[in-house]
């Protein structure tokens, strides 16, 4: 073997050994001024064998006139509806601008109190990388939480590796409080956000919006006000009839209402 090839083998061996060793620190290495990312060698080689989970499929396209038909992989046991008044915390990205006012109308109609927290351009990484959700929970003591996040993560590659821990952190912050996660209204096929949410959320707590029909605003992504209201109607009907924690959400007489709303600007 030539000296050059021996040298190359040495370089490759040393280089790959360094990265293989560092990959056993999955959260990266803190250098004080920066955090070095580490590879996925250890995770790829030692991850537990996956038990395939059924994946949710929309059985039909919900339309603005028709109720939603998003289904869970297997239907949870139908829980009895909780008819008591709730304090509902609704957090998420800009999609709340459309969903929030309609959900506020539902809250008024059914005696609930709703607090909307809109964090523009937010993602699971943004929410899961801080304790803001926990702080709002401590502040408002909600007994029901709605989350609408994922539209800003439709195209994130290798999403499970990048976002799973943030999602898990968000769900840990929610804790035992009943919740419904409203999936993003895809305008293009996603790279796995819906599957990740489906797998991580408790059964009957994830509402798949992908595959439904939406009339879009000029930006081509957000549903129009009318379409977002219809989307909210489908979600509420699903919460009442199919979710793991049904609460009273009868259709309101008014199209929209106001409620306390907190707005956070995009994180730079």
């Amino acid at each position: 073997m030539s000296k050059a090839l021996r040298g190359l083998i040495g370089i490759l061996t040393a280089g790959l050994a360094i990265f293989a060793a560092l990959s056993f620190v999955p959260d990266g290495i803190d250098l004080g001024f920066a955090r070095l990312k580490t590879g996925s060698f250890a995770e790829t080689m030692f991850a537990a064998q996956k038990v395939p989970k059924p994946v949710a499929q929309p059985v039909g396209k919900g339309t603005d006139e028709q109720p939603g038909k998003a289904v869970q992989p297997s239907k949870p046991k139908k829980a009895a509806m909780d008819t008591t008044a709730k304090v509902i915390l609704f957090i998420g990205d800009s999609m709340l601008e459309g969903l929030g006012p309609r959900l506020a109308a539902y809250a008024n109609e059914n005696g609930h109190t709703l607090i909307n927290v809109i964090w523009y351009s937010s993602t699971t990484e943004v929410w899961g990388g801080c304790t803001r959700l926990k702080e709002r929970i401590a502040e408002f003591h909600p007994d029901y939480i709605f989350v609408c996040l994922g539209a800003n993560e439709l195209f994130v590659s290798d999403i499970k590796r990048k976002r799973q821990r943030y999602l898990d952190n968000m769900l840990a912050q929610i804790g035992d409080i009943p919740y419904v996660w409203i999936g993003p209204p895809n305008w293009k096929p996603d790279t796995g956000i819906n599957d990740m949410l489906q797998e991580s959320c408790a059964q009957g707590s994830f509402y798949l919006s992908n595959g439904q029909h939406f009339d879009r605003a000029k930006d081509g992504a957000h549903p129009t006000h009318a379409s977002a209201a219809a989307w909210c109607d489908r979600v509420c009907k699903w919460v009442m009839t199919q979710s793991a924690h049904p609460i009273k959400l009868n259709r309101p007489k008014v199209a929209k209402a106001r409620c306390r709303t907190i707005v956070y600007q995009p994180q730079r």
Partner: protein
Amino acid sequence: MDYSLTNLWHNLTAQLAYDPSQPLLFSSGLFWVLFLLFIPLYAWVKPRRTQMLLFVTAFSLFFFYKSSGWYLLFMVFTATLDWLLAQRIAQSGDDRRRRWLMTLSVVCSAGLLVGFKYTNFVLWNIDAIIGRNFQPLDIVLPVGISFYTFRTISYVVDVYKRKLQPTDSLLEYLFFISFFPCLIAGPIVRATELLPQIRQNKPATRAMVYGGLWLVLMGVLKKAVAADYIAQYVNIAFGNPAGYSGVELLMAILGYTMQIYLDFSGYSDMAIGLASIMGFRLPKNFDFPYLSLNVTEFWRRWHMSLSFWLRDYVYISLGGNRRGKRRQYLNLMATMLIGGLWHGAAWKFIFWGAGHGGALCLHKWLMPRLKALPDTGWVRFVSWLLTFLVVSLLWVFFRADTFGTACDVIWGTVSRFDMAYLPVFAQVRNTWCIVMVLAFALHFLPQAIWNDLRRRFIRSPWWVKLLAFVIVVQLVLEFAAADVQPFIYAQF
């Protein structure tokens, strides 16, 4: 995490199993682990030619199997058939028989390519014409079929034209067809270039080994760092052009122009570098194409192995420029349409090919007048700008999902253009802008500087090379984890 041997074994076998969604890319960690195991064994068998051929062919076939499964039998079948037909062509003195055998070989090879790649496209078009509803056939396209089909066609045609003496060894031919560095995405190396090197079986020199490593590292930087990162924003903007301003769409167009170059040339660099480490010299595939001053020059610098293949086996075969101007233009258009269709089974690729064909014809037509222009800096700048504009605009059709989306991107760029967005864009997407500016700046760096850097790298001590390797891999990790946000503003 459970560090058990059971998990390790299960995951290891899963990694090595056939998985069409996980081709063995040169930028993947798995490839480098396998290559590290491959190289010492390769160096050991290299002096014994037959063993070397067997070993490399087996590795190449595994490489193909990993992403295409048992479709590798099709490749072996095509290769065996073409090898046999080429033998018969060489042995035959009858011109008609030779021609018939060559045609049979080309039809078989091209037929498989058409069958795999274009069946659904043809059915879809028939469906659109006659209005019948059909389900697309479940056809898995074997990885690299477009590339190895062109290699095998060039071999048989060269034997037919008596430019090449066919190889007597099927193993040698299989090695040539399946050679893993250029199996997935080229370069479309020809038998006249590779077979003599296989026969000589020269060991790799120090310059080839470390020059190869340099090329591989540059390729990884281009593909896995820059191109993949730039692609994130491009994908978002092309996914929803209605949601973006003119400036943002212009950035997406420029982004894709750079992305496709970095992606493709990066992969070619890796292929050429890996072959160089193994002691084989593959032809250059990209030569700073965005420096071109006209479209003809662009095609001499862009995907050179394909454009020269199309020139030699399509354009010249159709008559080239030997049958008058009109026929030359027709030949050019036909060649570029075939080139467009080769890139993918969709009308957008045909349109892209037609656009380039039209631009080439226009350039040929204007050539006498253009030659009369003075060779000043301004003339050169305008020529460069026009060429760059045409190439970038045509990339929009290449990239967009549909013809309508391409029109939306172009129309949105023009109709919603407002320079006021530019500083905001640069501020919010600063990393993306830095990567783009760096990519363009490095593209325009004189080639002498690149050659000098390469020489310095080859001569550098081992720890410099190790450091370069570590930095490049770390950059891959950092940029792979960095995401580009779809919305920088949120106006409902």
